[in-house]
């Protein structure tokens, strides 16, 4: 297994024969006939691997995919794999070591072929007296396929030297030959970066979280429409990927933008014209109804390793029917969502929504709060959401059922959306303790909500299977174990609730928030 990789520029003027003569001084090299390969750079849609300082390169050879995962800066090999199918998710890497490392970077996101190259590669192997390979040298002449075009763009040629573990001496000798008298120059940036530049790809722009630049004195209506328009663009950008189920993250981003849009529509009746938006709001709810269940199913499907770890070996086999059941459900729901999001109703919704957001505001026709400075409006809303959260949380007794927690969960989520959106309008240092306490509570409520959903989904699966007379005792036993396990985890998570809520409820926190929200208003009033 090669231990490392070293990449050099191959001068365009250098003839292959001359290059070989440098190598074959007194050593025996075996040549593999030069071949055309398809080389693919895999990454998530938001370039998580690249951002993590790594490159995942795949070569399609003899029906197999040879994966090389290396660091972006030094070219050090992090992993080599041969797979029969091109992996889409971290779980498909089979071998546990690499799987874990890739999962840490990409989470549940899928890998997409970001750049495809046609590559003509010459391979040379240095052999010893037993004809054992000691290292591999590859010269690669890459051509980039320009999207929507039949032409190729020629990229610079490279020499890759792959040392083999335990044969360092041979490697040092070859490197010395190649670099002697300034023959070859080591690359300063990975070939991926050159390919990215040629494809005019700029991963830096691809942030899943939108960034807003808000100024405190801007009229609330203008700010909110600006924000809503950003969410609209996110929805438009992700709807295609969500329909095609290319990556769960397309759906995730689509859904978050849709939810945040609805939250703003609901929370600012003094700024946005409620009557005018009534039908749009209903249509958003209609669209979300199709998208939300698929997101839940994506989460269940990604939880299978955890489910498996809760069962012994005999019971694990019964996860297969559950997996298939969820997959089937997802296929059905996906089809329904696709039909909805490609329908005329959805198209009209988005067209009407765009028109509304991009029209010039006529303030006389808008609610009175439309012209108020955004900071004042946001402060009022954050204060109200904080009070609502406290009120709902305090009302929860020990006997409260999951639906009561769900109500708090929803309010808390709205609170977090608004905090995230308007944080720049307030002193960030002073806002930090509140944001932290809110996030801690939100995490706990998210966990409670997810566990409750999983519990219900497992129950539903059992009932459906029983109705269809497709149960076996071992399946039911497994489902019982998992249902109990989810209930136990729910109780465990519930124990943290009171602590987290108490942190948010602290008198000190309340005072701090009040002072923070009123601070600039008061100062501005004094100035006037």
């Amino acid at each position: 297994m090669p231990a490392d990789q070293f990449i050099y520029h191959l001068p365009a003027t250098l003839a292959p024969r001359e290059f070989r003569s440098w190598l074959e001084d007194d050593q025996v090299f075996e040549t593999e006939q030069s071949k055309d390969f398809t080389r693919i750079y895999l990454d998530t849609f938001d370039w998580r691997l690249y951002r993590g300082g790594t490159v995942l390169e795949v070569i399609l050879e003899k029906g197999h995919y040879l994966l090389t995962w290396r660091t972006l800066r030094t070219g050090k090999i992090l992993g080599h794999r041969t797979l029969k199918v091109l992996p889409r998710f971290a779980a498909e890497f089979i071998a546990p070591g690499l799987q874990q490392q890739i999962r840490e970077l990409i989470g549940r996101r899928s890998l997409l072929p970001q750049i495809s190259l046609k590559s003509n590669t010459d391979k040379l192997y240095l052999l010893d007296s037993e004809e054992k390979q000691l290292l591999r040298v590859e010269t690669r002449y890459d051509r980039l396929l320009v999207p929507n075009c039949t032409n190729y763009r020629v990229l610079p040629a490279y020499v890759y030297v792959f040392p083999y573990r335990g044969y360092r001496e041979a490697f040092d000798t070859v490197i010395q030959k190649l670099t002697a008298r300034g023959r070859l120059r080591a690359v300063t940036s990975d070939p991926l970066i050159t390919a990215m530049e040629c494809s005019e790809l700029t991963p830096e722009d691809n942030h899943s979280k939108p960034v807003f630049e808000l100024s405190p004195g801007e009229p609330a209506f203008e700010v909110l429409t600006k924000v809503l328009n950003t969410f609209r663009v996110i929805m438009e950008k992700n709807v295609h990927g969500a329909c095609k189920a290319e990556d769960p993250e397309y759906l995730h981003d689509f859904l978050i933008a849709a939810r945040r849009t609805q939250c703003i529509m609901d929370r600012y009746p003094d700024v946005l014209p409620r009557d005018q938006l009534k039908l749009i709001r209903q249509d958003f709810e209609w669209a979300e109804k199709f998208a939300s269940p698929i997101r839940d199913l994506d989460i269940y499907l990604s939880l299978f390793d955890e489910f498996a770890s809760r069962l012994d070996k005999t019971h694990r086999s019964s996860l297969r029917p559950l997996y298939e059941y969820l997959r089937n459900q997802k296929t059905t729901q996906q089809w329904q969502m696709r039909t909805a999001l490609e329908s005329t109703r959805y198209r009209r919704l988005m067209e009407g929504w765009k028109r509304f957001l991009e029209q010039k505001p006529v303030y006389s026709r808008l609610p009175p709060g439309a012209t108020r400075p955004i900071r004042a409006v946001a402060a009022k809303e954050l204060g109200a959401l904080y009070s609502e959260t406290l009120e709902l949380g305090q009302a929860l007794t020990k006997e409260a059922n999951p639906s009561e927690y769900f109500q708090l969960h929803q309010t808390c989520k709205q609170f977090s959306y608004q905090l995230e959106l308007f944080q720049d309008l307030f002193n960030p240092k002073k806002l930090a303790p509140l944001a932290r306490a809110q996030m801690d509570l939100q995490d706990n409520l998210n966990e409670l909500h997810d566990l409750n959903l999983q519990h219900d989904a497992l129950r539903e699966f059992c009932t459906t299977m029983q109705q269809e007379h497709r149960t076996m005792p071992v399946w039911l036993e497994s489902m019982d174990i998992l249902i109990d396990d989810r209930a136990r985890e729910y109780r465990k998570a519930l124990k943290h609730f009171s602590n987290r809520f108490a942190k948010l409820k602290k008198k000190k926190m309340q005072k701090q928030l009040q002072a923070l929200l009123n601070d600039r208003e008061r100062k501005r009033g004094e100035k006037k």
Partner: protein
Amino acid sequence: MKILATYNIKGGVGKTSTAVNLAYLAAAEGYRTLLWDLDPQGAATFCFRIKPKIKGGIKNLKRRRSALTDAVKATDFEGLDLIPSDFSFRSFDQVFSDTKKPARQLLKLLFPMAREYDLLIMDSAPSISLASENIFYAADALLVPLIPTTFSVRTYYQLLDYFRKKPSSHLRLLPFFSMYDNRRPLHRQIVHSLPKEFQGILNTSIPYAKRVEMMGVERAPVGHFAPQSKSGKAYRRLWQEIRDKVVDERHFY
């Protein structure tokens, strides 16, 4: 890191060819695999064209634990490394017998490499000795090739007897038929009757085939030079069975 070992008290039953082929198939599937040739005959090492030599021999391994990491050699196959055999391995018992907890020395040597590989396959020498006790202690599963003949089955009884006296709770015994020739009535009879007597005999049998013998000539695993041959396919089935049973228990959905 999961540790498998091919083992049988009897020699010439197909331990080395099993170890070599399974290691090759595991690496081809993406497991970072290390093969340790513990047999002083060094047949597995020969198969990969590597010199059967470890600097300083077994005494150096005892003195300097990192010597084992330094001894690792890459094979010509992606993802597969090998610790070559060394003739000094024949004196394993003498070298390690005076240490504290002598049966745990092999595992101790392997600690530094535990995170580097997903799978280690040890090809052991045919004997029952301190070296084999070390293998039993370190391994998660013992792959026991059985030729369907009376003598070979007898050695399996001896092994079972050994574990009855010295039980090892963590170790799984995975016997399977090797060098099976279905033209021979005795082979057919044993393959038919033995699984009824012992539970846990693997479903895959490796046929007696000239392709396996050719490994020594080609100096490569069967899966590399004859993947579609009968024995190539049999080794692939065997690997899949072992993988699902021991190596990756998550292959169920």
